[in-house]
């Protein structure tokens, strides 16, 4: 990979960390409502996998921890932030919020709050690509907790039977909300669970973006070549609680410290410094530039954007301009 791309990837991961940190602050200031699930600690997974995908072309779908996946797919960060602020300029026009970012202009097909629901939706996106005979694939990011839903097993089976072009990315952060994986799941290595569906699967470190990219490339090439679905598991860790209402009482400070030593940004920055691609001063400048962008462009845009109009409450429930040939109403004699 070229030095410029390496610097860009490091910058993206720092940007995602700072973006989520800024969401935390805005939430504490009550600028945002609802639930907020932050991605800090897992940045190398979404960044690395989607770096290898054709973003804007391939379909991407995920759960409610979705800001970073949306932005890396190509959704404008200022629109994602405006969505969190509930504004009309938001990715989902203020109707979805943090958990439901959508941007079909870049084929980011949404964040969903029902754990495991994106499995079948992703397989459906892949079925659409297959029916239209495009070279698109669908990429579904979900956590380990989602694999205990029925949709996991039902969808793995159908994706495999029908050889759908879908990549399932399991971000194994070892906690399903606040329950540790050993306490909820008989087989803790998630990639082993799809063997029963005769699906190609592998497990990798999710904290080193080079490892993520290499593994993702193999998986994406496999899926795009028409050989069927692939399940790829990355071992990772979320620094913050499941959501903002989570005090993390279910895990130890020692464990958190252990994982902080494997921080994806620190690991990648160290590699790039060692390879003389970047210096500490460069990183400092990068951070300054990112903070300026977040504050003076992204937050400013979200703050200054208009609220949805109250008279638009019923907009988007059904097609707002339906064809009367199909809808009617029926004329009685």
């Amino acid at each position, binding site marked *: 990979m070229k030095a410029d791309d390496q610097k860009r990837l490091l910058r993206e991961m720092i940007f995602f960390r700072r973006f989520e940190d800024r969401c935390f602050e805005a939430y504490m200031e009550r600028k945002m409502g609802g639930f907020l699930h932050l991605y800090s600690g897992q940045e190398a997974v979404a960044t690395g996998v989607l770096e290898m995908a054709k973003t804007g072309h391939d379909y991407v779908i995920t759960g409610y921890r979705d800001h970073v996946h949306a932005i890396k797919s190509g959704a404008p960060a200022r629109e994602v932030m405006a969505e969190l602020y509930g504004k009309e300029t938001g990715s989902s026009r203020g109707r979805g919020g943090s958990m439901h970012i959508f941007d*079909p202009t870049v084929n980011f097909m949404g964040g969903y709050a029902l754990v495991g629901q994106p499995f079948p939706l992703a397989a459906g996106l892949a079925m659409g690509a297959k*029916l239209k005979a495009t070279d698109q694939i669908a990429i579904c990011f979900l956590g380990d907790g989602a694999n205990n839903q029925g949709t996991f097993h039902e969808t793995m089976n159908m994706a495999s039977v029908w050889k759908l072009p879908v990549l399932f990315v399991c971000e194994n952060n070892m906690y399903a909300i606040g329950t540790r994986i050993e306490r909820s799941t008989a087989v803790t290595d998630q990639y082993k669970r799809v063997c029963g569906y005769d699906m190609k699967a592998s497990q990798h470190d999710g904290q080193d973006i080079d490892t993520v990219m290499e593994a993702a490339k193999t998986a994406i090439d496999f899926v795009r070549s028409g050989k069927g679905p692939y399940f790829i598991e990355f071992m990772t860790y979320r620094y913050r609680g499941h959501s903002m209402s989570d005090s993390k009482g279910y895990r130890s400070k020692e464990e958190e410290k252990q994982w902080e030593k494997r921080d994806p940004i620190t690991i990648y920055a160290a590699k790039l410094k060692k390879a003389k691609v970047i210096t500490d001063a460069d990183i400092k400048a990068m951070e300054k530039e990112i903070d300026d962008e977040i504050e003076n462009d992204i937050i400013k845009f979200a703050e200054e954007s208009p609220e949805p109009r109250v008279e638009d409450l019923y907009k988007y429930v059904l097609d707002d301009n339906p064809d009367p040939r199909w809808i009617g*109403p029926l004329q009685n004699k």
Partner: protein
Amino acid sequence: MAEIAYWEAIRRAHDEEMANDPLVIAMGEDIGVAGGTYKATSGLYDKYGESRIIDTPISENSYTGIGIGASMVGVRPIIEIMSINFALLALDTLINAAAKIRYMSGGRVSCPIVMRTPGGTAHQLAAQHSARLARMFMSTSGLRVVTPRGPLDACGMLKSAVRCNDPVIIIEHERMYNIKEEVPDEEFFRPLEGAEIVREGTDITLIGYNFSVYLCLEAAKRLESDGISAEVLDLRALKPLDRETIRRSVEKTHRVLVAEEDEAPVGVGAEIMAVITEDCFYALDAQPVRIHAADVPVPYNYTLEKEAIPDVEDVYQGALKVMGKI
């Protein structure tokens, strides 16, 4: 014009829509090689192949979800669920996903699926094959819910449902698949909105939907021999509901009965009664009556089942009560 059965009308709609658009597909259990439990897709597997007439595993929630996912990127899936009881397994993808995606994406993504399913009591199928859950879909924002009563609507409304950009739930009935009716030979569509006056009358309005329309029509014949002129209104669309046609009919007859095969509490009939109270209160000359199923899981035993489900006699007696004859 040719007379065809309800199941043939559904089959014709599938065939025409699949011939019209290569992105129209059908999916469900046993719909392909086996031809469909009610024959609604018979012969289409050979014509369109396994990539468009898709035999699914018995995984209602996820195969419905796959149809929904495909619909988000331009596919028009017609999803069959063998019984409305089994649709309960697919409620997460239908109600949490299909019904809400347009709204929570700010209108940027739509889910133009059609889900068809029989939802009534047949004969002695017992409680787990006899649910009538129209009310559940009817109370979900973001869905269209229709109940075609005969071949004309079965074909024309399915075709409209495929072309419409909203998720459409079509509730059929096991006892209607062999009902026959004349339909045009040339292509036709029937709108997804609007109640229909299927029999004109002046003394009382009998409101039904799905199979209960036939109970109302039979009861109307008996009332006619008693000198009572009954108007019969088929709701056709439960969501959105055609309040205007209900109001106009009740303002004409001043008396009304609502007949449904569902249990009463929080049912379709309860909603219609609320609409009548809100829109027609001062037009009423008598207390309205609701005919509905007993509030019990449907029994297997023939006699008990017959007692639990409303029939023509129940509608007739109910109408006489509204008319003050008993």
